[in-house]
């Protein structure tokens, strides 16, 4: 569907959700390189080239970040705030992908700089459909910000 070199960063702690999301990607023929971070700290390590990702070129930013809100160590909103504060990562499109539909979460999500907010439906078919739309929009229709 899109160039393989473009990475999607999936920040998700629940292995079931990781598996189902990857399945949904597959079903939608999204063949991008998907990097999974299992908590907030890992996500930031990846983005800022620290810890396990120390040798990574931080200028090579992911095309899209799918961010869960409820995460161990650092939660989704904290991750969002940090990456928005960084010179290299502040323009990366971020789609919040979460179970919560709480008004408070929606507001703080957008306030912290989320580009989109998608609620994971219980029905897997609907989830696949949602992932389809996300991929279509953010990877194809939307023009990404230019590299810095």
């Amino acid at each position, binding site marked *: 569907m899109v160039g393989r070199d473009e990475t999607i960063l999936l920040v998700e702690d*629940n292995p*079931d*959700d990781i*598996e*189902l999301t990857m*399945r949904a990607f597959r079903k939608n023929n999204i063949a991008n390189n998907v990097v999974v971070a299992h908590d907030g700290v890992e996500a930031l390590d990846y983005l800022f080239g620290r810890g396990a990702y120390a040798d990574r070129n931080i200028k090579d930013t992911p095309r899209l970040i799918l961010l869960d*809100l*409820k995460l161990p160590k650092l939660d989704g909103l904290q991750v969002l705030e940090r990456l928005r504060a960084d010179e290299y990562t502040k323009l990366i499109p971020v789609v919040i992908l*979460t*179970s*919560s*539909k*709480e008004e408070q979460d929606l507001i703080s999500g957008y306030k912290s700089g989320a580009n989109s907010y998608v609620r*994971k*439906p*219980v*029905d*897997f*078919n609907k*989830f696949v459909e949602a992932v389809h739309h996300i991929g279509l929009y953010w990877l194809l229709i939307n023009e990404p910000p230019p590299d810095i």
Partner: protein
Amino acid sequence: MKIADLFIIFLPVLSLFVALAVLFRAWRYRPGHVVTSFLWLMVAIAWWLLSAIIENMSTNVSFSIFWMKMCYLGITTLPVIWFVFTLQYSDRGKRLTRPGMVLLFVLPAVTLIMVWTNDINHMIWKSIVVDTSFYPSVKTVTYNAWFWVHAIYSYILLLAGTINLSGLFFRTSGIYRKQTGILLLASFTPLVANLLFITGIGPSFSIDPTPMAFVVTGVAILWGLSRTQLLHMMPVAYETIFRSMADGVIIIDKQDLVVETNPAAQRILKLNKTEMIGKTLKQVIPGYEYSLELKTDMNVTELTISLEQDRMERFYNLYMSSIVTGQRSSGHIVLLHDDTERRKAENEFREKAVLETELNERKKMEVALADEVTRRRILVDQSRDGIVILDQDGHVYEANQRFADMLGYSLEEVSQLHVFDWEFLYPREQVIEMLRTVDEKGDHFETQHRRKDGTVFNVEISTNGAMFAGHKLIFCVCRDITERKKAEEKLKQAMADLEQSSACLAATNKEMESFSYSVSHDLRSPLRSIDGFSQALLEDYQDKLDEHGKEYLNRLRSASQKMGELIDGLLKLSRLTRSEMHQEIVDLSALAEEIITRFQETQPKRHTKFIIGNGLTARGDPQLLRVLLENLLGNAWKFTMKIPQAEIEFDKLNNGNGKTFFVKDNGAGFDMAYADKLFSAFQRLHDTTDFPGTGIGLATVQRIINRHGGSIRAEGVVDKGATFYFTLE
């Protein structure tokens, strides 16, 4: 007949008529002693004349002699009357007593007796020779001794009368003197005439001219009477009045020069008569500035002058009146009337009146004040607050019964107390300081008082201080606030309790929030896994699953999706109770139309008749009211989906308080036996397969209505329809 003879007859007759005319004219001036004697005088004259005329006309000797004797009735009485007249005229009539008068008539009476008895004693006439050959008859008489006694007596009386008049002439002045002068002159006429007749000197008369001369006198007197009101004025009386009157009188002539003053005027002006005569009014009356020229047509002029008299200021009213003789003013009479006493009396009266008014006012005020005091007393006595007045040292000056009752003392005991006896909270120095500093601006504070029995209670004091006759008094209104304090304590406790419970509530809410958050987040994840992996199984292992296996996986999936919906419903319900309300007037008709339009868009093929009342409004939260109508109309929409002629109505009831709305449909309805279960969460009266739903809708409706303070009830018949009645306030 010779002309002289005619004259002899004519003149007495003329005189008689004149005398009678005078008598007639003088008659009007009666009564009065002077006029009376004048009338008698004229009667005597007239009689004399009448007798003389008859005597002379008579040809019979004895008849003539008879009338000659009759003459003496007038001849003898006339001098006496004349004398009496002059006495009275000169105001000496009162010297004449009744016996004196009788005495005067003794001699004329004797003379008359002698006249009528002359034939015997010949004391009057020695001889009477009547020669009737002439006309009128000529009598030659020789007088004897008594005649001369009579003559001398008569002359003495006539002379005395004349002397009376002369005396008057010299005593009086001005117009009176003029009158007296005329009278005096007239009185000489008969004297002279008689003297000439008796002595035979001068022209010879055949008849006695004396009565005729007296007529002249009478005419003169009458002339004076009518012309200058001679008799009426009683000059001497006026003179006496003039001299003795208290008012000052100044008479001025045409040249405005003083011609006469009375003693009162002299006394008032402190000038003697000679200093005033011949001066102008301006010279004799200090402060008199008026020109008399201007006053001539005025009868009376008045002004008030102030003069010092015996080192006291006295006020005189000045009156002026013109003396008019004929048509001309011949001078003025100026009268000075002492007005001081009247003024003083008037002032005193006025002062008294003012004083009386003041006294009345004061009395009125005293009554009003007494009433006011009574009213205040009642107010103080009836007051529910204790009232006490303290002096500046803190001693009780006055207190009301309520104050005594509050402290448990009698009123007498309280009056002996000092503020220290009851003040419990404030130290003594501070109390003294408060007494010293409190002023009319007042103060307000709470303290505690000690009763007689030692118990202490809370009071609220309103106090202020004021000065009375150099002494400061402190007014205190004391209210027993024990009950209020208790109530305040209770209120405080209740507030504390409330605070605590609201803190609990807040904590509960917080918990609830985090609970629903975790429900929404964490409960859904496993469901998603169940559903997701069931789907994965169905897709990836469909060749290894038989139909039963696939069926079970589908059930797993629908159960998990159903549970997702339930979780969402629960969250929505809890959010309703937590969200803040924004009250405003909401147009329910418009809202209902909007909702219905959306329903019809989702199922455009359905034909449902909607009846929405016009202008339905209610006060409430617009979001919540939207959810309310969505649920109620949604239910009606849902439960009429199998009815060919579906009908849904939303309106307001006409009866009752006009605040009851209703939503009515002709759908599936319900059994009233289960009506109580309608509004509980997750309670359903219909099979999900017939009418899908979570059982949250009416519970949500119930909660929204509760939050608006309203109520809801439902009526329904199975397969006939349901009606939901609700109010919002």
